C-alpha cells in the first residue's frame, strides 16, 4: 500500500476536511443531546430534593434562592417546597470545609418548624470505609426528625448526642457542623423562605 505524498497543500486540505467533518458531527450530536443532558441534570437534583423534603408539588429548583451568609464564603442555596401553595419545608445546602479531606456538601431538608426531614450527602472525599459511612442510613437516621433547637447535634465526644463514626470523628464533626450551619440559616430566614414561592 503506497503512502500518499505529503505536500503542504494536501496536508492542509486533509486536516481542514477532517476537522470540518468532525466539527459538524459534534455540533449535530450536541444539538441532539443538549435537552436530555439538561433534563437529566435537573432530574438528579429533583431526586435529591424528593429524598430530603416532605411531599411537594412546586418546582423547588426554579424557586431556588441564594442567601448570603456572614461566615460562609459562598451564598447558601435554599430550595423552598410547597404543597397546594402551603409551605411544607425547604432544602438547604450545608457545607463544611472541616472534613478529613476537605469539603463535605450536604442537602438538608427541613420541615417548616425546623425539624430535619432527611439529609443527602452531595459531595464528600472522605476515607473509604471510615468517613464514607456518613452516607449510611444508620448514621443519617440519628439526625432525622430532630429539631436542632432542642437536639444537640454535636458528637458525643464534644458533649452532643450524636454517636460519632468509629475512626472518623473529624468527618462526623464536619457533618454536624454543616447540618448546624444549614439549620441556623433556615431558622434565621424561615419567614422569607416560606414566602418565596414563585
Amino acid at each position, binding site marked *: 500500500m503506497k503512502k*500518499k505524498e505529503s505536500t503542504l497543500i494536501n496536508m492542509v486540505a*486533509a*486536516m481542514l476536511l*477532517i476537522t470540518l467533518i468532525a466539527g459538524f*458531527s*459534534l455540533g449535530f*450530536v*450536541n444539538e441532539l443531546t443538549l435537552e436530555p*443532558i439538561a433534563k437529566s441534570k435537573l432530574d438528579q437534583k429533583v431526586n435529591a430534593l424528593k429524598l430530603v423534603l416532605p411531599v411537594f408539588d412546586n418546582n423547588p429548583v426554579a424557586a431556588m434562592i441564594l442567601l448570603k451568609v456572614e461566615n460562609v464564603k459562598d451564598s447558601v442555596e435554599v430550595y423552598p417546597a410547597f404543597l397546594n401553595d402551603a409551605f411544607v419545608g425547604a432544602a438547604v445546602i450545608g457545607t463544611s470545609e472541616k472534613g478529613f479531606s476537605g469539603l463535605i456538601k450536604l442537602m438538608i431538608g427541613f420541615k417548616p418548624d425546623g425539624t430535619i426531614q432527611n439529609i443527602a450527602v452531595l459531595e464528600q472525599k472522605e476515607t473509604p470505609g471510615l468517613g464514607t459511612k456518613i452516607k449510611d442510613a444508620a448514621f443519617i437516621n440519628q439526625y432525622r426528625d430532630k429539631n436542632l433547637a432542642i437536639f444537640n447535634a454535636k458528637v458525643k465526644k464534644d458533649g452532643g448526642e450524636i454517636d460519632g463514626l468509629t475512626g472518623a470523628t473529624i468527618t462526623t464533626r464536619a457533618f454536624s457542623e454543616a447540618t448546624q450551619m444549614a439549620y441556623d440559616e433556615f431558622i434565621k430566614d424561615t419567614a422569607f423562605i416560606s414566602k418565596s414561592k414563585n
Partner: protein
Amino acid sequence: MAAIINQKENFFKGIVKENPVFVMLLGMCPTLGVTSSGFNGLGMGVATLFVLLMSNIVVSLIKNQIPSKVRIPAFIIVIASFVTIVEMVLEAFMPFLYEQLGIFIPLIVVNCLILGRAEAFASKNTLFSSVLDALGMGIGFIIALTLLGAVRELLGSGSIFDIKLVAENANTFILFILPPGAFIALAYLAVLFNKISIKTS
C-alpha cells in the same frame, strides 16, 4: 500485506493472545482508574469498544487519503470526535455511568490502545479486517476491565455487580477499591491469565 490474513485469527487475537490489558498492557489509565466495580469496568469497556470500532472504521476508510506526515493528528481528531460523542450521549442518557466514569471518559482519547490500533492496524489493513480487529481488541478490553472490576468489587466491597454478598457492616478489603488495589489485582490477574493462556495454547 499481500498475504491472506486469517480473519478468524484477526478477531480472536485481541481476546487471548494479544489481550490489550493482560498481555500488551495498553490503556492502563482507564484500566486502573475506573475498575472499582464490575459495572464501571463493563461501562468503560463498552465505551472504549465503541470508540475503537468507529475509529478503526474511519481510519481504515480514509487511510489512503491522509498524507502520512499528518496521519497522527488526523487520527487523534477522529478519535477525539468519537470520544466527545460518547461523552455527550452518556451524559444525556446514562447520567449514572457518566458520573461514575467521570474524567476517564475524555481520557479515552489518549488510551494508547485506540491510537495504537489505528496506527498499527487500521491504517494498513482493509475495512473488514479493521472491524474484526477492533471487535476482538474491544471485547478483550471489556473482558479484562469487567474481570478486574468484578474482582476488585468482590474483595473491596463484598459485592458482585452491585449484588451485596456480605453483611452491611462486614469488613472488606477496602484497599482493593482504592488505587493500590488496582495495581495488585491487575498484576495477579495478568499472571493468572498468562498462565492459563500458555497452558491452553
